[in-house]
């Protein structure tokens, strides 16, 4: 049984997109996790859903929107949510995490209303919620490729600044690093990556691809750079295995990708435990 990668264009689209996301999500995820903002991805994915639902609703009534790839409207909402979180954090200086449930519930509330207005669920929406191997279009591939270029330019050229800001904002301020706009661009990029990942992983599971590979690598890695490397290896492994399995079993890929991430996480915990047990045994 050979995998018909070269036979079907839809599989190529799905895999190329998946591999790009397997790179993007964990890279940004490392910064999110070490800043203890893991839930940000959840809040932004739910506001993205509102954008998708809005587009589906408008598509029924306005011709222009029915031809438009909903991913763009998702991005608009997601970036809007990112700006909202940034603003709310300034309002609630001492309760910064409050911004996340506020944006998240606003996102779900809006989604429910738009979905109701669009006369309920359909297969399109199902694909956005849980991901799909079939639904990735050529235009999605190019959009995500473009985002990949932006994110990599940002992370490579501002690596130092992102690193200090994640470790110690006060130190960053003393060494003259202007954290405000870097933090802002960062959260906007997270919003874009989330909106672009949802075709493959699905809105409900996007955040797991940002956090689970990092959660696994943070236990094993020595240093910050190694954390990136391992996170990407884990992320890509989960995406590729998950896509293959979802193709053969005809499951939504969101589920299989996330479950592979969970398995990798469990294996990393087990590995760490065995290794530290051995260390204790040697010391004794």
């Amino acid at each position, binding site marked *: 049984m050979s995998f018909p990668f070269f036979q079907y264009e839809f599989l190529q689209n799905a895999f190329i997109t998946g591999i790009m996301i397997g790179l993007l999500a964990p890279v940004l995820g490392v910064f999110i996790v070490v800043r203890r903002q893991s839930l940000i991805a959840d809040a932004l994915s739910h506001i993205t859903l509102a954008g998708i639902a809005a587009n589906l609703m408008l598509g029924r009534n306005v011709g222009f929107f029915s031809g438009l790839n909903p991913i763009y409207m998702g991005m608009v909402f997601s970036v809007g949510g990112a700006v909202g979180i940034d603003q709310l954090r300034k309002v609630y200086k001492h309760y910064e995490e409050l911004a996340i449930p506020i944006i998240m519930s606003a996102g779900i509330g809006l989604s429910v209303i738009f979905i109701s207005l669009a006369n309920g669920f359909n297969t399109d929406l199902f694909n956005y919620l849980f991901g799909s191997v079939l639904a990735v279009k050529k235009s999605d591939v190019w959009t995500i490729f473009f985002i990949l270029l932006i994110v990599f330019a940002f992370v490579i050229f501002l690596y*130092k600044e992102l690193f200090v800001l*994640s*470790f110690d904002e006060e130190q960053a*301020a003393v060494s003259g690093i202007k954290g405000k706009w870097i933090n802002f661009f960062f959260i906007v990029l997270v919003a874009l990556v989330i909106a672009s990942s949802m075709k493959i992983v699905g809105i409900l599971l996007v955040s797991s691809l940002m956090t689970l590979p990092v959660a696994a690598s943070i236990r094993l890695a020595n*240093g910050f750079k190694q954390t990136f490397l391992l996170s990407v290896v884990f992320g890509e492994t989960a995406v590729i295995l998950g896509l293959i399995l979802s193709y053969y079993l005809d499951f939504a890929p969101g589920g299989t990708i996330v479950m592979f991430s969970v398995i990798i996480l469990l294996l990393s915990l087990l590995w760490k435990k065995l290794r530290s047990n051995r260390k204790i045994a040697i010391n004794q």
Partner: protein
Amino acid sequence: MSKQYKPAVRIEDLSFHYQDRNVLEHITFEIPVGSFMGLVGPNGSGKSTLIRCLLGLLKPQSGNVYLFGQPLSLFKNWDEIGYVSQKANSFNTAFPATVYEVVSMGLFGKVGLFRFLNKVHKRKIEQAIETVGMADYMNRNIGELSGGQQQRVFIARALVSDPKLLILDEPTVGVDAASVAGFYQMLKNLNREKGLTLLLVTHDIGVMSDFVTHVACLNKQLHFHGNTAEFEKVSKEGFSQMYGHHVHVLEHQH
């Protein structure tokens, strides 16, 4: 004060208050270049606030701050100032960064936006780590080290940009007693051998006074400011009076 004389820090009539609470009242003092100044005072005496004002992290309601003769608002050479904050003790210890990576952060401001570390920088990072005696731990995760070792790493991070002034805010909190003397000795050597101006903030004058050259005592107002010899004299003459009801904090005998 002649025009040529530029102390590392000069604070003129600085006052700071949060909404209804005065924290600092009319503080005026200088840190001469090359000195090792101990800034002491009980908890809540405004020491950290004063430091944050002179770093520009807080804006005082009145008064002026000069760094190396320049008004704070015009001061740009932040790589000349090393700062080890009190918070260094409570950072995210699970942060996945090696000692080398943490120390490299001290150079980022100097290297500048969109630029990368070169070989000279890398050598500097290694030297700073050697200076604080942590060369054997270069590639270990910061979280695996003891409190005293972590604090040395943060000093290395502050030293790596070749500062002229190093400010340490309660650096020995969370460091085991046995390491504290060695830690102060290391600071004393930096001051003597490298001519580094040091400002050490602490509530513990007992240990500190054996190592510093100058002392300033703060409790909202500045109660004493001078070199160590004068300080010893004053303290024998009932220095603790100045602290009023905070006397208990100063009951360390010399």
